[in-house]
């Protein structure tokens, strides 16, 4: 077969032979179902969601051909074109162009296409076909396209492009056998598509292509595709791990750019336009519209949910429902766990003789772990709601609603998705900032994301609310209100600091938000349940390892050295212990906030993770009480006193402590992730300083003002 002039066979070394598994890259627009398909092919369970930007890193998995031959599949972040505008899109570009040393350049490419948006999705496919690699086009969401009245003829598309086209519904596992068969083929056809580069641009393409082949060791076809790309976006976004271009190529690029600027003609736009014209002709040929375009079901729902008034009412109702559920639905399982753990403690207490080991098991191990495990039901409810928002597509609407308030502080709604994700855990939130194009906006979002109240704060808030408001006399709505207030303080704090940073450290023009609102979907309960179970396992693993370890050490530090007087009171013993002595050194710093040295010990141990505070309180106050029964921590806290007999946990102190946890940077994992994402220790250290400093100042003001007002 005679190949078209712009196609040449791939280099020998990249051909997947029997000795080497072929490497497939899975690419496509954001939210077109790549990860769902990746999971279906590889059997892995990577996170999926109905909003753009779920996948922000490349993922590697293994699939098997129809003959059982292993095939490596790389799931790449979504992008609308190879012209990267954000770090996650740059990962896609760099892997496909072979710019990354840590990832093999793929032998074959699976282009996943959202069939209901074929025209827009084909732009990326069109660019990828230029690479001259074997491509399989997967027409995903065929059911959605049919419902929307778009009848696509896959055969005609296959004939036009010259590559294999597979209609598919990844969610329902339809078309997977056909896809596996196509992937199993030893030879895949190479693209036949023709796209004539506008004549005035051709010399620039040729110049750059020659330089890329000679100085950047690209193959001729990849060099041509990269040249076309460089001429449209000038390679503005670069990420760590990407091999830089040679100085000669950069020189040529700059000279062409200068020449075009001098001519006053926007050849980049011409290049993009001519590609779209080719796509339009193709779409006119393969799509038959069965009905006139009208407002879809999603459009009709959006008329209410993103309405300037009703939208906010609905958003408020969702948040209120979330916190109401946390206080009501979780009560039964929480009590069940509490009762069983207490019974276990009682059994150990009754079956062992008095001694250090019994004390360690009851007050160190069981009290410490129980203190945190009882909050598992509440955390699961939080994750259920977050999963519901992600799965239905409401997450993108929340970002849209937030765009206006966010723009007031200099950020756009796209920053709200990482911030909303931080309600669950700041780590995925910080990683999700990779979808933000502007580097300054990204850094500001990273710096303020840990201010959003994450799930680790939930046990601290719940403990303080339980101590502050007795369940018998105070209505649930009051507790819900107090919890909402903490979340509101965190959110407003994040907005306030974003505003401050955008006006001082990271001055830049307010960005414009362009974001795709995905069609609404029914919540995928199996997926949400799976994510909840994974989260529960992670939480229990953490409770059984780190929190257990810290509880055991804390028991030791609060028990040793032993008081010289064996008849010393528990209070005197803990004050004499190592933890007591360390706490007393810290006490002058935190006393102006209403905290004593025992709270100080909790603040120090919970720097590892916020929830450790609860288990630390359980150990410290459990040791102090020396009670035969493992009394509820809240009762122990309520009866705690200062040396002068004054109550320690007054309502004002409980409130101040909650506010301290809203602002203070108490999470080592977050510090590590910020270091990795910013590639420097400067920003995580700055974050610790500004957040913990703010926590101290705000708590000082609240406590001292409260005292002055007689609280």
């Amino acid at each position: 077969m005679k190949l078209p002039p712009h196609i040449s066979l791939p280099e020998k070394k990249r051909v997947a032979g029997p000795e080497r598994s072929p490497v497939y890259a899975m690419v496509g627009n954001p939210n077109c179902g790549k990860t769902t398909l990746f999971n279906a092919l590889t059997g892995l369970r990577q996170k999926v969601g109905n909003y753009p930007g779920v996948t922000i890193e490349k993922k590697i998995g293994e699939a098997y051909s129809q003959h059982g031959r292993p095939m490596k599949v790389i799931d790449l972040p979504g992008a609308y074109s190879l012209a990267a505008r954000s770090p996650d899109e740059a990962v896609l570009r760099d892997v496909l162009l072979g710019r990354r040393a840590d990832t093999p350049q793929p032998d074959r490419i699976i282009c996943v296409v959202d069939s209901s948006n074929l025209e827009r999705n084909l732009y990326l496919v069109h660019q990828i076909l230029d690479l001259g690699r074997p491509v399989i086009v997967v027409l995903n969401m065929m059911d959605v396209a049919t419902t929307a009245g778009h009848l696509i003829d896959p055969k005609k598309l296959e004939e036009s492009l010259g590559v294999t086209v597979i209609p598919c519904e990844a969610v329902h596992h339809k078309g997977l056998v056909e896809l596996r068969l196509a992937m199993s083929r030893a030879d895949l056809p190479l693209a036949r598509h023709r796209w004539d580069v506008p004549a005035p641009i051709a010399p620039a393409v040729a110049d750059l292509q020659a330089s890329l082949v000679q100085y950047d060791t690209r193959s001729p076809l990849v060099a041509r595709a990269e040249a076309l790309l460089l001429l449209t976006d000038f390679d503005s976004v670069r990420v760590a791990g990407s091999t830089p271009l040679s100085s000669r190529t950069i020189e040529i690029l700059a000279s062409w750019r200068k020449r075009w600027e001098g001519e006053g003609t926007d050849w980049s736009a011409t290049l993009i336009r001519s590609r779209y014209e080719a796509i339009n002709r193709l779409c006119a040929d393969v799509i038959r519209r069965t009905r006139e375009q009208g407002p879809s079901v999603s459009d009709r729902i959006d008329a209410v949910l993103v309405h300037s008034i009703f939208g906010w009412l609905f958003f408020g109702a969702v948040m209120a429902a979330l916190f109401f559920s946390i206080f009501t639905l979780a009560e039964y399982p929480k009590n069940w766990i509490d009762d069983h753990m207490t019974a276990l403690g009682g059994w150990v207490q009754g079956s062992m003789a008095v001694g250090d080991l019994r004390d360690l098991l009851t007050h160190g191990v069981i009290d410490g772990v129980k203190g945190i495990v009882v909050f598992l039901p509440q955390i699961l409810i939080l994750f259920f709601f977050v999963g519901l928002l992600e799965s239905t597509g409401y997450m993108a609407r929340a970002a849209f609603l937030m765009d206006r308030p966010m723009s007031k502080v200099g950020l756009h709604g796209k920053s709200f998705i990482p911030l909303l994700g931080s309600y669950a855990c700041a780590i995925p939130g910080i990683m999700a900032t990779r979808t933000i194009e502007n580097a300054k906006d990204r850094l500001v979002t990273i710096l303020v994301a840990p201010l959003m109240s994450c799930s680790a704060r939930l046990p601290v808030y719940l403990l303080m609310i339980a101590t502050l408001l007795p369940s018998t006399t105070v209505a649930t709505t009051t507790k819900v209100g107090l919890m909402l207030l903490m979340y509101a303080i965190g959110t407003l704090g994040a907005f306030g600091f974003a505003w401050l940073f955008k006006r001082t450290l990271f001055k830049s023009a307010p960005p414009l938000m362009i974001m795709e609102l995905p069609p609404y979907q029914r919540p995928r309960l199996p997926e949400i349940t799976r994510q909840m179970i994974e989260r529960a396992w992670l939480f229990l693993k953490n409770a059984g390892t780190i929190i257990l370890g810290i509880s055991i050490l804390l028991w030791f530090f609060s028990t040793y050295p032993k008081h010289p007087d064996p008849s010393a009171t528990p209070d005197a013993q803990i004050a004499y212990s190592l933890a007591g002595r360390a706490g007393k050194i810290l006490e002058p710093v935190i006393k102006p906030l209403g905290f004593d040295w025992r709270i100080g010990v909790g603040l120090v141990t919970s720097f590892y993770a916020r929830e450790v505070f609860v288990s630390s309180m359980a150990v410290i106050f459990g040791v102090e009480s020396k009670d035969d029964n493992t009394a509820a921590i809240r009762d122990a806290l309520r009866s705690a006193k200062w040396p002068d007999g004054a109550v320690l946990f007054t309502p004002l102190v409980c409130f101040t402590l909650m506010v301290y946890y809203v602002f203070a940077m108490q999470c080592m994992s977050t510090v590590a992730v910020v270091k990795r994402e910013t590639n420097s220790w400067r920003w995580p250290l700055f974050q610790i300083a500004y957040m913990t400093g703010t926590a101290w100042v705000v708590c000082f003001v609240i406590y001292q003002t409260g005292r002055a007002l007689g609280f």
Partner: protein
Amino acid sequence: MTAELQTLIALAVVATTAACLVVRSLAKHKNHGCGGECACPTTELKSKIRR
């Protein structure tokens, strides 16, 4: 169990725990993150890649 033996075992448990925590914190983490939820590679995925 005598009080002395209990003290001995309790201190051994504390020492082992401290050693485990130190080893854990000094161990080189290939992947920072929350261990799966945050879209960082899961153990399952890591084992597949290793293979």
